């Protein structure tokens, strides 16, 4: 079946809904999503959205900009960060005007709390910049955007899974998607496509990410010949519930919670004397791994304690109600009385599909755009997060760049006609489905995925080195061979979620390869990429972005300079 739209948005989390909402003013738009929009993982964001409103104390977008760049270990493009931090302020007011139920200050303004790496006066001390709605900020953003989409009659295709990107004559001509309800393959012929498919945390065993986060948009872009930028940078959030990886917001530490080792010591005093527990996530996660390695994990095991016992009942009940509930439900513990077992959890891909500051996807190191193709949010890399994202900035990113991408796509669809659909536009998508269904081997997709997640956690997570990454590369080749032997039992066409999981696993395998090869290539330590064999940052050789391409002989690289405008790279101390 072929549909014709001016523009198609793929993904219906924060970035996709923001884009759908803004693009719908410019033409006929479809938003396709493998989930019902309100199931998207934006809804799991907890602590807040960063914007220098200054509702409690003095704050400026320039301070936010500096913190974001320093947090990124100077890999973020500074022009993009400036836009992010300037537009954050108007974006938060826009959300409020759309009805987002922010928590309030006593004088009725939007309440703000401290968050990791956010400071006043260029690093002097923490500042209250994270605008929040209890610890459900992402839920409120997702609901508010969905409500606005209903009000503005945005057109959704729910439970359609992205299979392929149609590129013809150097332009994007649409996407191919698999309808879960019927098993039919649909071609969406469009002048412009905006990818907002989110992250790929499911390649790791312990993750805060939903099952759905399998990097579909990134994998499809890669297979269509586009590069992926900075994939070696993957953020591990310090406080995941032990073993399960469920996120316990940094807002807990923003409200005063403390990380402790087996002796009860507040170990962050040794790693970040000024910001302590509110140092950026890469530093806190590394500190936790070190504590565990040096035998100071709780009972000698691979976890530490998040201590909230000294916080008032009001903070637990009013400011952190959801995480209090999670600890009770999943650990059977009362966080008012006992500390909570936590370990770093795979959380966020800083890298993704490279774009410029108007959301246009670029195909090379000199920023040549691929006409009609846009990306925003976690699947994209502008890059505003560089080597390490600050907490609250992902929510700013999805909204600011979701809107900017939509605006430039909006102009594009006015000025351009549809690129002609190539013959057999859905050929690659159909071939993939047939190949997977025809497999008659003995492997189960779940076993291959289990191995992938365990091996990635062990060899390519918080600390890496040439040896572990090299072994991981060999493992991935082995996992690909096993993947070729998987058998899908479900032969049906209606809601064949077993087939869907196999498609998703293939995406994860492709992206794990890019992550590992990019990590192997980057011989330095910067932000979330920490090489034990190259422990120092190396600005002379590596102050540049990685662009990874899929070629017949494996992954090929190009490199792109970092845009530096206001802040020269300095040593990063907190």
């Amino acid at each position, binding site marked *: 079946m072929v549909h014709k739209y001016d523009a198609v948005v793929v993904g219906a989390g924060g970035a996709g809904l923001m884009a759908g909402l803004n693009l719908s003013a410019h033409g006929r738009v479809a938003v396709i999503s493998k989930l019902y929009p309100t199931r998207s993982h934006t809804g799991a964001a907890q602590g807040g959205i960063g914007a220098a409103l200054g509702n409690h104390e003095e704050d400026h977008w320039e301070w936010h900009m500096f913190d974001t760049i320093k947090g990124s270990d100077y890999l973020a493009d500074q022009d993009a960060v400036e836009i992010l931090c300037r537009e954050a302020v108007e974006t938060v007011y826009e959300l409020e005007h759309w*009805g987002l139920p922010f928590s309030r200050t006593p004088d009725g303004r939007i309440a703000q709390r401290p968050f990791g790496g956010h400071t006043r006066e260029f690093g002097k001390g923490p500042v209250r910049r994270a605008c929040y709605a209890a610890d459900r900020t992402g839920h409120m953003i997702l609901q508010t955007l969905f409500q606005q989409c209903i009000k503005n009659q945005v057109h959704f295709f729910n439970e359609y899974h992205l299979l392929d990107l149609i590129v013809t004559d150097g332009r994007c001509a649409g996407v191919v998607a698999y309808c879960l309800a019927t098993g039919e393959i649909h071609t969406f012929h469009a002048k412009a496509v905006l990818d907002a498919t989110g992250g790929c945390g499911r390649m790791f065993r312990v993750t805060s990410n939903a099952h759905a986060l399998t990097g579909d948009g990134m994998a499809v872009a890669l297979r269509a010949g586009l590069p992926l930028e900075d994939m070696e940078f993957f953020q591990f959030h310090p406080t995941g519930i032990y073993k399960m990886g*469920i996120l316990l917001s940094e807002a807990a530490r923003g409200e005063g919670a403390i990380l402790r080792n087996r002796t009860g010591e507040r170990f962050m005093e040794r790693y970040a004397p000024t910001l302590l527990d509110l140092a950026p996530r890469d530093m806190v996660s590394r500190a936790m791994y070190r504590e565990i390695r040096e035998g100071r994990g709780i009972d000698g095991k691979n976890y530490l304690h998040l201590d909230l016992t000294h916080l008032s009942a009001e903070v637990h009940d009013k400011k952190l109600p959801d995480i209090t509930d999670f600890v009770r439900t999943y650990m059977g513990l009362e966080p008012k009385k006992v500390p909570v077992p936590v370990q770093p959890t795979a959380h966020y891909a800083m890298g993704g599909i490279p774009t410029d500051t108007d959301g246009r996807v670029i195909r090379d190191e000199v920023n040549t755009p691929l006409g009609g193709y846009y990306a925003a949010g976690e699947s994209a890399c502008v890059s505003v997060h560089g080597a390490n994202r600050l907490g609250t900035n992902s929510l700013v990113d999805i909204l600011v760049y979701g809107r900017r991408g939509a605006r430039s796509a909006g102009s594009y669809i006015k000025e351009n006609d549809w690129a002609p659909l190539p013959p057999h536009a859905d050929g690659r998508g159909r071939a993939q489905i047939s190949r997977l269904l025809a497999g008659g081997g003995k492997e189960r997709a779940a076993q291959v995925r289990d191995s992938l997640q365990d091996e990635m956690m062990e060899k390519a997570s918080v600390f890496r080195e040439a040896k572990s990454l090299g072994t991981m590369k060999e493992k991935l080749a082995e996992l690909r061979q096993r993947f070729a032997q998987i058998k899908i039992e479900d032969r049906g066409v209606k809601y064949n979620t077993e087939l869907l999981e196999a498609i998703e696993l293939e995406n994860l395998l492709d992206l794990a390869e890019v992550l590992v090869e990019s990590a192997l290539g980057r011989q330095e330590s910067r932000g979330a990429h920490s090489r034990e064999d190259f422990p120092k940052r190396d600005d002379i050789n590596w102050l540049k972005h990685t662009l990874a391409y899929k070629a017949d002989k494996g992954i090929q690289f190009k490199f792109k300079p970092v845009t530096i405008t206001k802040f020269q790279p300095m040593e990063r101390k907190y």
Partner: protein
Amino acid sequence: MKVTLKIKRFNPEKDSEPYWGEYPVEAEPTDRLLNALNYVKWYIDGTLTYRRSCAHGVCGSDAMLINGANTLACKVLLQNLGSKITVEPMRGFRVIKDLLVDMEAFFEKYRKAKPYLITHSPEPEKERLQSIEDREAFEDTTKCILCGACTTSCPSFWANEDYVGPATIVNAHRFIFDSRDEGREERLEILGAADGVWRCRTIFNCVEACPRDINITRAIGEVKKALLFRRF
């Protein structure tokens, strides 16, 4: 621990009627029911079909009838369910395949009560002011994740599928009691109609079913009261 999942199965492409499938699962007492369902799908029978995504109770994908009560499969632990666990799709929605139901009518009703902020006054340059007390008045109903557990546990909904149902009322309440909203009258008009709030017989099933602990019956009561005061 060893548990047996007794799952109500139905594949529209094969089965003329639903049947019960039994699956032994070796699991930790602290595993979520979703972990056990995943185990069955991944290692025993790949055709088992259900929705799931976040796996920690915030996305609303996996509401189902577990040991006779609606809840999220990712928000209940095996140690609280006994050794033989029955799992069925939510009642009152059309079953598409196994535990996966048709949610279209549910979202259609949700849209009916205008679930978005309605304002006519000009927007200020910065945020609208709202006191902590005014914000608190609708706090409870902002938590809804649209999972459908409340509506499909409601006998009034089972008896009359045209009833808008608790989830729709919860999402209307969220705006009716928001001091910034100016669409109160239009929403009350919709909820005061024959298929609106008066179908609620205060049975409280919805309150028990809600995985977000929203006091739904109280919210419905507040909407009823708003309608009564409006009339007199």
